[in-house]
């Protein structure tokens, strides 16, 4: 009964309060909207992309089940087994060179040879429209379909003839879509699609050639795929193939999407945290304006809990409103992207509403709203009715009370838990929480320090500067909020800018100076001597490195199957598929052995392996442990003889696994070589080498790096976008803080005028205050952001860190311009007020 009366009173009060509208809650709503929007938009996009991938899984994989083999085809018995279970399609892929008929232009292509059954799922996009069979048919030449980039770069058109290996192909059309390649991953050259008969005519497939065989099976019932997988593993345990079902289609893309989502969500969360300051400022300002109102209600018998509950309910309702706006817009993003970009998106998108994503975003929003408003609500609860009898309201020295402080702690804990539980990388989430907590503590400490320092500093001789400095430490000054909000927003921006600038450095500056200009793949054994001689004879060539190479897959680590072994995610790549292996008698130059010893050059004993130290650490093995590698279907177990430290960033030719002589020499193999040559001579080297060795694939480092750079740029744009949301939120919070302070500023300006201040005096006083705040916020952000970026780059990404003064200076400028601009905008309004207007109202 008492409870229902209480809640009746609360609801009545809430209804009356909300009757006056949402005035003063603009920043509150905008901050929650932006943060929740960022998180829900990201989550919805990722979930829709993953749904799209799953919906297209059959087409993406090319079948319900895929078996991948390097270098070799299925054995007859294996083929019969699969043929009996569904429709089978065989696709072969390799990288090789194509040339125009004059032999003037050559380029690396991603060659794909398909059989009659291809594609099992989906349809190819061909321009002009024609049947695949017709496009690839052999007439006087074999037919080929190519990506548009091929035509542009080789200077040919549809209908022209081109050479690949020993065969001639007529380009019959342009390939606009491949169902099993709808995820546009990183490629080294444009697609060149031919028939398997066409591939045979090229004579490129030789023992040891780097050819991938993919066998796709379409089942009568795709749900039976897991049973078939088990059957295959039992029937052919030593097959050495890699199996994937439609459920695992595009695992790298999904991994990448999850990773991007995780990282971007953390920046989104950062925006929401900054927005929390706006929430706090708005609630504080709103309740400060209600001080006399609350005091009056208390005088009339309202209890503290009644006041607290009524205003808490209002905050929650408004929080829901802001979050709902963010959720609606966030949920609409995948639909909007699919509508606007459609096929141009790098992943297939199946837009739908993902309730769990929206629930998480809403929870984040509400918890932030609660965490940042409870303090002000607690203080409001304790407003003494006595303020009615004084001319001025208290300036918020009283605390919220222990109960509320405990509640704030619980809400913050819930926020942290939610961040960790919804994160795919718990460790990263924990780091983020620690970083965010540190940032908050740092900025709070810095804000308090700056305020204290401004109080302790001797008075500057200039009255404006003196007043400006005084305004920073004055009671109710927005200095704390301004430093906090702008500082956190700018810090997020500095981190993102510095991380990206350093990654760009890694690709564009550091590497090319040391890296080889070209890598040559698929050099046949009989070409090795001629290749080396030709390369050495070319002007400018400073270094030619060459290694025999085979492909093999790690199957067991110290006797434990890789499926069961405990492998660090950092080196998971090493067991994900086939890896290039090599063997050498002599230790490669600049090799640093960290453990064990290199074998004698004429070693001829049982298999021994030299492994890179990082892989060994990730596998949890060392010298004298074993590694089992499947090479062309044969399991080879070698003992680890030494561990090496390899600096992969130099792009020098190197291998994670190098065998001792005596094990791999007899296996079919090709050679891989790298050539170091200055940029001016690159073209000549490319022309001569690809002309003389048409079967050898040449990969230009510069082009690859440009590709990587473009990919990084696109990823960077997404990160910068999120950082911009964080900064925009910071800007909003700052605007809110300045605007909340507007009334006080106008009153101050009037009194200043009464005391004889000119407009210039007032303008310079306020400008000095905001200039100081901007500089301080910029400086702290530059410092904290640089430290955080260094932590991320050196700690998490294990790469080098370089300070970019330009980026930092730009941040400083943004900070100063934003604060000064916003502050002066507010001051301008204050200056425009005629004192008489205000005095007359008194």
């Amino acid at each position: 009964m008492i409870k229902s009366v209480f809640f009746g009173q609360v609801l009545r009060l809430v209804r009356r309060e909300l009757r006056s509208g949402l005035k003063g809650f603009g920043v509150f709503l905008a901050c929650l909207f932006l943060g929740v929007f960022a998180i829900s938009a990201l989550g919805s996009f990722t979930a829709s992309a993953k749904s799209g991938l799953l919906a297209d899984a059959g087409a993406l994989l090319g079948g319900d089940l895929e078996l991948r083999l390097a270098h070799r085809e299925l054995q007859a018995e294996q083929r019969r087994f699969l043929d009996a279970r569904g429709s089978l399609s065989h696709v072969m892929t390799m990288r090789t060179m194509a040339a125009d008929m004059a032999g003037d232009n050559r380029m690396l292509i991603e060659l794909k040879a398909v059989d009659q059954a291809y594609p099992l799922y989906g349809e190819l996009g061909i321009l002009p429209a024609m049947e695949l069979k017709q496009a690839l048919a052999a007439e006087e030449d074999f037919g080929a379909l190519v990506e548009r980039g091929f035509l542009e770069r080789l200077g040919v058109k549809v209908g022209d003839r081109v050479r690949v290996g020993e065969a001639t192909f007529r380009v019959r059309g342009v390939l606009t879509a491949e169902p099993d390649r709808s995820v546009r991953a990183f490629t080294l050259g444009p697609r060149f699609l031919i028939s398997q008969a066409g591939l045979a005519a090229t004579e490129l497939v030789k023992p040891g050639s780097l050819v991938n065989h993919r066998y796709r099976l379409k089942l009568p019932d795709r749900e039976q795929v897991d049973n078939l997988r088990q059957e295959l593993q039992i029937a052919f345990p030593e097959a050495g193939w890699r199996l994937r079902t439609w459920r695992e289609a595009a695992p790298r893309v999904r991994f990448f999407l999850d990773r991007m989502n995780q990282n971007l969500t953390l920046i989104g969360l950062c925006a929401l945290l900054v927005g929390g300051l706006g929430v706090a400022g708005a609630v504080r300002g709103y309740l400060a304006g209600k001080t006399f109102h609350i005091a009056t209600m208390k005088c009339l018998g309202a209890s503290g809990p009644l006041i607290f509950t009524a205003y808490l309910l209002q905050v929650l309702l408004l929080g829901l409103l802001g979050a709902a706006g963010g959720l609606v817009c966030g949920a609409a993003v995948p639909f909007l992207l699919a509508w606007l970009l459609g096929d141009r998106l790098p992943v297939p998108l199946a837009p739908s509403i993902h309730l769990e994503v929206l629930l998480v975003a809403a929870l984040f929003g509400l918890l932030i709203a609660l965490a940042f408003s409870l303090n002000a609500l607690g203080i409001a609860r304790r407003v003494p009715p006595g303020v009615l009898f004084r001319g001025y309201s208290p300036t918020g020295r009283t605390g919220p009370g222990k109960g509320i402080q405990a509640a704030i702690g619980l809400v913050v804990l819930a926020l942290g838990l939610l961040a960790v539980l919804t994160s795919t990388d718990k460790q990263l989430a924990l780091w983020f929480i620690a970083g965010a907590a540190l940032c908050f503590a740092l900025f709070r400490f810095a804000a308090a320090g700056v305020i204290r320092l401004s109080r302790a500093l001797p008075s500057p001789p200039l009255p404006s500067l003196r007043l400006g400095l005084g305004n920073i430490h004055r009671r109710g000054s927005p200095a704390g909020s301004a430093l906090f909000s702008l500082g956190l927003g700018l810090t997020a921006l500095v981190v993102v800018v510095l991380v990206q600038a350093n990654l760009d450095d890694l690709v564009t500056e550091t590497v090319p100076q040391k890296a080889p200009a070209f890598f040559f793949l698929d050099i046949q054994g009989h070409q090795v001597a001629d290749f080396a001689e030709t390369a050495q004879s070319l002007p400018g060539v400073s270094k030619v490195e060459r290694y025999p190479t085979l492909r093999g897959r790690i199957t067991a680590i110290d006797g434990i199957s890789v499926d069961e072994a405990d492998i660090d995610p950092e080196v998971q790549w090493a067991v994900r598929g086939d890896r290039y292996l090599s063997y050498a008698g002599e230790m490669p130059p600049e090799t640093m052995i960290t453990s064990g010893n290199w074998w004698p050059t004429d070693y001829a004993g049982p298999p021994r392996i030299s492994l890179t130290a990082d892989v060994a650490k990730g596998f949890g093995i060392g010298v004298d442990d074993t590694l089992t590698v499947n090479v062309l279907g044969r399991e080879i177990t070698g003992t680890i003889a030494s561990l090496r430290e390899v600096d992969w960033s130099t792009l020098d030719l190197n291998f994670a696994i190098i065998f001792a002589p005596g094990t791999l020499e007899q296996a079919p193999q090709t050679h891989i070589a790298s050539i170091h040559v200055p940029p001016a001579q690159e073209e000549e080297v490319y022309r001569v080498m690809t002309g003389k060795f048409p079967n050898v694939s040449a990969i230009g480092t510069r082009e690859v790096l440009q590709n990587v750079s473009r990919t990084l740029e696109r990823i960077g744009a997404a990160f910068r976008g999120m950082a911009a949301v964080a900064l925009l939120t910071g800007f909003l919070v700052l605007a809110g803080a300045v605007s909340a302070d507007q009334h006080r500023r106008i009153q101050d300006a009037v009194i200043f005028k009464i005391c004889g201040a000119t407009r210039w005096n007032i303008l310079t006083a306020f400008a000095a205050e905001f200039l100081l705040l901007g500089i301080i916020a910029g400086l702290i952000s530059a410092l904290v952001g640089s430290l955080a970026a260094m932590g991320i780059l050196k700690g998490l990404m294990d790469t080098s860190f370089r300070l970019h003064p330009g980026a930092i200076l730009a941040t400083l400028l943004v900070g100063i311009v934003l604060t000064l601009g916003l502050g002066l905008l507010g001051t301008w309004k204050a200056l425009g007020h005629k004192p008489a207007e205000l005095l007359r109202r008194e």
Partner: protein
Amino acid sequence: MTEPMVEINDLHLSLVGGAGTVNILRGIDLQVARGETISIVGPSGAGKTTLLMALSGLESPSAGQVHVAGRDLTALGEDQLARFRRQHVGIVFQSFHLVPTMTALENVALPLEFAGRRDAREAARAALEKTGLAARLAHFPGELSGGEQQRVALARAFVNQPSLLLADEPTGNLDRETGDKVMDLLFDLQQKQGTTLVLVTHDASLADRCHRLIRMMDGRLAAPGEQAT
């Protein structure tokens, strides 16, 4: 004959509001000699406060002339008026108009700081000591009683040693006893500094303490020149 501190000729002031033009001052002529104290009384809405604001340059007349300390205020711009105020005028309000986020000392130092005085804080401290608030220098207005706040306002008004003090119902928010103490202080400072005083009040006894009493009615002076006892 010495030049009067205040000389007002045919002063008109009209304001345009939602309900149309309101004529607040309708042809005021007034002279106040240097060192003289005058009180202005009259019902609410008579235009007393507006006259005070016109004298301080905070309100621009629609017609007529206002000379204070030999300067024609109607010829001065906003910033020139601000400089004029900091040199010649002190103002005390009914609702004190202290900056709530500044301490008593900072409030009193304000006019001196705007005037570029290096010794602003020392002078402000001395002014507050004269008003008996030596122990309240670091207190914020919200921590002071009404009487104390008005004493801070008095210190701020007198700290520049203005030649003209304008007081707008300075005891309106205070009880009788506190009001009396504040007024004793005001007259004491006025006498010591030889300041000309224009006092707007509803309190007849307070008005009687001035040399001259002027009654205002509907924007006009009702009985100019009436001598106070």
